[in-house]
């Protein structure tokens, strides 16, 4: 199989272009690099959301459930190690965002602003990002009390009263983490039970600094220059109340980063990419998907990494069958 040639100088097609650089994309990079395919990883751009190189783990602190780290590992450190491992075997990184793709013919094309890169195969690992509430004032007050990143901002709420919105693992994990700093953490949830895992629920329930506000939705975000509170509505009675908090952490779920592929790849009604059973193959031959962009169920770093490995092996064997 010919693996070198013009693909590495940026003009000819690459064997593999990987879009996204969380655990899935970087594992795919490690595997395809070790297979001698010299992958190009379009890793994204720095930001303070999960839409950045390294993905959602860049916004976490201790990762306690990634195998191989009995004492836990910091999310950003783990992703740095993934990246270094891929680089060691010859993966090339572009610190840019993919802005457009054309998957209508091979080689496939991926645009980074004005620049275009062609690939014989494409691995999509663009992940998912946190949802915001979509209320007025929310975006304006980000960095002024409204936060999408507990680990970035929790420190600044020492001794204060704050609220976390949501009922999943990430909401309870953030609430528990934030009690390191905040005097009191309210967890606002629109239902009367959590969907979070038992261990996260047990931890949160045992924490004296957390108070649970069930059956309530945030309907208004209050504050001029900085957050002063939120208006809550009771989901059963509609009765409204004001909760005075200086911090609001939003953890109400995720949406997959699949807008880029809407014209090409089959998606579920919730936007997640569809892969063929027991594989990373999409509806387009030569295009593979892995990680959270195609997983609305497990959504773990280790499952993302595992599916990245599957995508790499699927891509490698497909390229081989094509005679590359």
């Amino acid at each position, binding site marked *: 199989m010919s693996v070198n040639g013009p693909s590495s100088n940026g003009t000819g097609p690459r064997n593999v272009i990987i879009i996204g650089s969380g655990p899935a994309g970087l594992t795919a990079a490690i595997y395809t690099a070790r297979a001698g395919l010299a992958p190009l990883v379009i890793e994204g*751009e720095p930001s*303070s959301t999960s839409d950045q190189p390294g993905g959602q783990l860049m916004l976490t602190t201790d990762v306690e459930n990634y195998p191989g780290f009995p004492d836990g590992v910091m*999310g950003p450190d783990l992703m740095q190690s993934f990246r270094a491992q891929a680089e060691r075997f010859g993966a090339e990184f572009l610190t840019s965002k993919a802005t457009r793709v054309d998957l209508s013919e091979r080689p496939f094309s991926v645009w980074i602003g004005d620049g275009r890169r062609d690939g014989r195969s494409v691995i999509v690992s663009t992940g998912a990002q946190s949802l915001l509430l979509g209320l007025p004032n929310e975006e304006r007050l980000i960095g002024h009390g409204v936060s999408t990143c507990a*680990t970035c901002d929790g420190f*600044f709420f020492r001794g204060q009263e704050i609220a976390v919105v949501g009922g999943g693992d990430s909401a309870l994990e953030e609430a528990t983490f934030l009690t390191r700093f905040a005097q009191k953490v309210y967890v606002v949830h629109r239902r009367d039970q959590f969907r979070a895992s038992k261990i996260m629920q047990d931890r949160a329930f045992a924490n004296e600094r957390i108070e649970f506000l069930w059956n309530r939705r945030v309907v208004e975000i209050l504050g001029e220059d*900085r957050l002063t509170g939120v208006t809550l509505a009771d989901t059963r009675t509609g009765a409204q109340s004001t909760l005075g908090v200086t911090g609001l952490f939003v953890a109400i779920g995720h949406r997959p980063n699949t807008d880029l592929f809407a014209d090409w790849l089959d998606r579920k009604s919730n936007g997640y990419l569809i892969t063929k059973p027991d594989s990373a193959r999409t509806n387009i031959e030569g295009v593979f998907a892995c990680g959270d962009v195609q997983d609305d169920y497990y959504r773990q770093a280790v499952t993302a990494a595992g599916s990245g490995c599957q995508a790499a092996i699927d891509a490698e064997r497909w390229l081989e069958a094509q005679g590359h």
Partner: protein
Amino acid sequence: MAEGIATLNDSTFDETVGSADNPVLVDFWAEWCGPCKMIAPILEEIAAEQDNIRIAKVNVDESPDLAMRFQVMSIPTLIMFRDGEPAKRLVGAKPKSALLEEIGEFL
């Protein structure tokens, strides 16, 4: 001359920022902040390339009083000081091109 990035603390901040001839872009950051680590190399590049501003860092763990004084509530926060006074504030990590655009008036 482009200079390296100085680390400022409670006792050196006012003298350094107040006496600087050029605007000083101060990066409030911490070890535990992923997005802060992402922009660190970008700031090093800008420090090496731009002669008309200086860049300095404040570790909010080591200098919490400075973070409080400038009402930093999220990191990374970048504050541009001109004549010792905050002139512009940027919250959150951004790509280099966006960062340069935001601070363009000071370059």
